[in-house]
């Protein structure tokens, strides 16, 4: 199972803080996960989480491009940060 989390504006866009992708169709990598999300989410939500400014973290570490996933991983979609 992969735990997917959406933060801040992306949570609002998707309508949920997260979802679990079950073991029946566990994606092997981020590209595969995006394919699953494209089917699961409506077009507007999918566009939001794949926006140019969105960064993706696997197990709390930012990744660039594709990355392999294994059971138990947590994948987070992060909009641009605005702390301080």
């Amino acid at each position, binding site marked *: 199972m992969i735990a997917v989390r959406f933060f801040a504006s992306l949570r609002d866009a998707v309508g949920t803080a997260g979802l679990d992708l079950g073991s029946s169709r566990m994606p092997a990598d981020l590209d595969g996960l995006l394919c699953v999300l494209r089917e699961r989410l409506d077009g507007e939500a999918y566009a939001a989480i794949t926006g140019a400014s969105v960064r993706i*973290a696997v197990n709390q570490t930012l990744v660039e491009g594709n990355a392999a996933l294994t059971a138990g991983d947590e994948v987070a979609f992060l909009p641009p940060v*605005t*702390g*301080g």
Partner: protein
Amino acid sequence: MLRSVRVIAEDFDVGVEWSALRTALHGGSGAIAAFCGLVRDRVDQETVTTLTLEHYPGMTEPSIEAIIDRAEARWPLDAVWVIHRVGALSPADQIVLVLTASAHRDAAFAGCEFVMDYLKTDAVFWKKETRGGVSHWVESTHADRRRASDWDAPGK
């Protein structure tokens, strides 16, 4: 180097933190610089009623540690303490505290400003403003990104 990173919902007392840091230093420090960020009550001529800060537990703290690592590599700092609040805040509330200590003021001032600039662009937090009963997520600004990237400019 003394370091402390705290992400908390409750308020903090600058005096208490200042004294705790001053007591923890070992006499070699000649300067403590402090920056405290507050919630403004107006943005674009509109009254802000609430500022809500969200973070990603487990990722936010390391993102602050990484900023402190960079400051430590750049200046001879004796201490960097960061407190950042999360949750619903009101105008005039304290959001963030950065304390830096060094033998001399130059490094303390510069380190404090550097850490603050990168807290804006690299630390994992998101702000939601409520104005006139309407809430919206704050967008990152070009000015903030420019301030941070200027630290990599020649001559800095």
